[in-house]
């Protein structure tokens, strides 16, 4: 199968500090990829470059054969790459329903169609279906600022997927979520994404989540990808053990993949 995202020789430095170096990644359709690495390893920088938020210093980014480097985030979004954020980016003073209504409205219209009313029965139906899919329908009337953290995360991801993106980048979908809730949250997200056959790349610190949901791991260390391999293999990789899993390793929370090895 052909790659949908091809990143070659991507570089980024901030005032001499290297945030990305020689990054080569090829992502195929339907893959679910986990991005791991310590804080400051360049994971979010990578996502920011792919989605146009940061301009790379060098290298190329191709999506479905098309060069997308240098395009603004909204163009990349329109082409089919969407993202969620580590800190939920929602409209805090609006209800969950209105958040999604706005999201659908922006996603569905362009040009003069923007002058049509924001609210329509058909659009409200789509919002309803989307809320069901992410299992947050009960919170429809709640103001986003008052939501429990997990629900707000779901809302953030629900908003990122109103366009049914080809490729979705999730920046730490489970950060700030209690351990008990993490799996439930990920089950909801993954089930929803599977329906649309969305290709997913997500940043994750919890190795249990990585092992359970992803088929392939990209391990970042100091701006470089030190390992790109199927999950089980990556968990045994000596460099991953040393530079990414090190802390957990010493603390005794050995990832099960390593334990099985």
């Amino acid at each position, binding site marked *: 199968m052909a790659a949908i995202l091809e990143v070659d020789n991507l570089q980024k430095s901030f005032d001499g500090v290297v945030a990305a170096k020689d990054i080569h990644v090829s992502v195929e359709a339907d893959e679910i990829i986990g991005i791991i690495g310590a804080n400051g390893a360049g994971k979010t920088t990578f996502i920011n470059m792919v989605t146009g938020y940061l301009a790379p210093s060098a290298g190329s980014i191709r999506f479905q054969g098309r060069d997308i480097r240098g395009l603004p985030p909204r163009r990349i979004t329109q082409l089919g790459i969407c993202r969620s954020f580590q800190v939920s980016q929602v*409209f805090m003073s609006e209800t969950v329903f209105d958040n999604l209504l706005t999201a659908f409205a*922006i996603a569905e219209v362009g040009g003069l169609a923007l*002058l049509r009313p924001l609210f329509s029965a058909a659009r409200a139906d789509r919002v309803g279906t989307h809320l069901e899919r992410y299992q947050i329908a009960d919170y429809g009337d709640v103001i986003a600022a008052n939501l429990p953290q997990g629900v707000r995360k779901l809302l953030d991801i629900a908003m990122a997927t109103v366009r049914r993106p080809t490729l979705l980048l999730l920046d730490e979908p489970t950060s700030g979520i209690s351990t008990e809730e993490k799996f439930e949250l990920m089950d909801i997200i993954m089930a929803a994404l599977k329906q649309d056959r969305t290709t997913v790349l997500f940043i994750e610190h919890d190795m249990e989540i990585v092992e359970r949901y992803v088929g392939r791991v990209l391990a970042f260390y100091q701006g470089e990808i030190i390992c790109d391999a199927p999950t089980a293999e990556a968990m045994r990789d000596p460099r991953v053990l040393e530079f990414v899993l090190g802390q957990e390793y010493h603390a005794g929370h050995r990832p099960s993949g390593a334990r099985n090895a």
Partner: protein
Amino acid sequence: MARYDRTLIGLALAFALLMAANFLMPEWVRFIGLQTLARGAVALGLLVLWRTGLISFGHALYFGWGAYTAALLTRAGITDAFVLTVAATLSAGLLALLLGFLLRRYRAIFFALLNMAFSMILYGALVKTEALGSTDGFGVASPSYFGFAPEGEAVTTTLFAFSLTLTFVVVVGVHLYLRSTLGGLTLAIRENEIRVEYLGYSAERAIHIKYVISGLLAGFGGAVMAMAIGQVDPDSMALWTVSGEFVFITVLSGTGSVAATYVGALVFELIRTYAFEYAPHVWQLILGGSLLAIIMFLPEGLWSLRQRLARAKG
């Protein structure tokens, strides 16, 4: 969702009532009415911006620009009210379009004061230009209407009927805009531009469009004011205190409804007129006091009285 838009019905009723009242009201009331329509239009533009969290301390720029455009055209012998108004509105809109490319990049206090800076440049230029009468300004010829040149009291009744009709069209347009997807992008932009961008739309472009709308409205208001007073001068058209008055009306009205803006503008005119008449030395004090009272007791503006009353009724 209501089948009929109650605001539109209310606006149509108000339009019909005011049109009928036009022939009954005394001259001085009609003059207050004209001023209300003129300042209300600018405040309506500020409402469009304010809903997105932006405030401008410089919309006298577009108000003055519109007023002077209309005045200059009459000097050139063009007196048709429709031509004057459309030209003033469009030229102010064009100016807003140009400045918008810079202003769309600024937010909060920088946006507010950058607007003020531009308005001060216009003010300074007007004061220094002798061809435009410097600080005295110059007179605006009485407008005609498609060849009809009214005389006597018909001068103001016709102007009021004309301005009211155009205002009605403008207000309905703004109301529909605010209800639209693009207009509904206000809160979203105020709260999270990043998310708007990642949903596939440019927040800066949306702000630019709002800015042009506010410029068009201010230019329209300027034209109405120039025709109503029959005179343009820098101090009452382009000085920063004029911009302050528009902000005053916006705060007084609240952002609840397009109709609220005109209620606020009317209340402003009344306070100003009466304060000036009965307390000529302390009228600014009275204006300031009323603003203070509004901010303390009705922070969401006069329009919130309506909701409060409805709640009190249960």
